[in-house]
């Protein structure tokens, strides 16, 4: 076993550890944040950064062509689909008025949701 493969194994294990730590911190953020939108903000940390670190760590430890392709596909599909789910959840949270008890400082979505006359649909009504 050469020096390079040992170094790749060690760096891969370190990246796996960092990715799992990132996932744990994101889940702790999900437990501590107060409303749906900020929980969704915390939830993107395991889904993107933690996932990417774990996949790069696995790729550094396996080092096979087909496995690298599969890992790249996993990262691609994860990064393609998780914004769709987050967007729909955040949209549904806005439409049902669960945007937090402190309210929004600036609400750019409201004039776009209304028809242009009157005050439009207020969140929470």
């Amino acid at each position, binding site marked *: 076993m050469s020096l390079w493969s*040992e170094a790749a194994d*060690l760096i891969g294990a370190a990246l796996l550890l960092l990715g*799992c730590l990132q996932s744990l911190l994101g*889940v702790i953020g*999900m437990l501590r944040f107060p409303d749906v939108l900020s*929980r969704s903000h915390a939830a993107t940390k395991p889904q993107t950064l933690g996932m990417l670190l774990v996949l790069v760590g696995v790729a550094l430890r396996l080092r*096979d062509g087909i496995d690298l392709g599969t890992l790249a596909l*996993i990262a691609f599909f994860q990064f393609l689909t998780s914004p769709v789910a987050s967007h*729909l959840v955040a949209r549904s949270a806005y439409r049902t008025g669960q945007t937090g*008890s402190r309210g929004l400082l600036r609400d750019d979505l409201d004039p776009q949701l209304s028809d242009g006359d009157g005050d439009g649909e207020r969140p929470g009504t």
Partner: protein
Amino acid sequence: MTVLHTVEEAMLVAAVVMILVAGALLLHRIWYGPSMLDRAVALDVAAALIIAGIGVKAAHDGDSFYFPVMLVLAFLGFTGSVGIARFIAVRDRPARRPDGKEDHR
């Protein structure tokens, strides 16, 4: 060589323990989540945690047997929360507190 191997083994075990602790905390959010949307977000994160756990197992064993499972989870894991957000969450408005304000928690 053996010392390095032991260090890597310890790092992988610590990674698995972190994934398990994160999953247990996430079960708390799924169980007590005040609204259905919190549960939808938590289910997305659960899919991500399962992918990470399978990845740590693959890195530990050095085989790629479960990579198709990770692939399917990566591109079908979002359908549950999309369904919840589109069809269920509208019926699940937050409860009103006695002072008239909505309980968002």
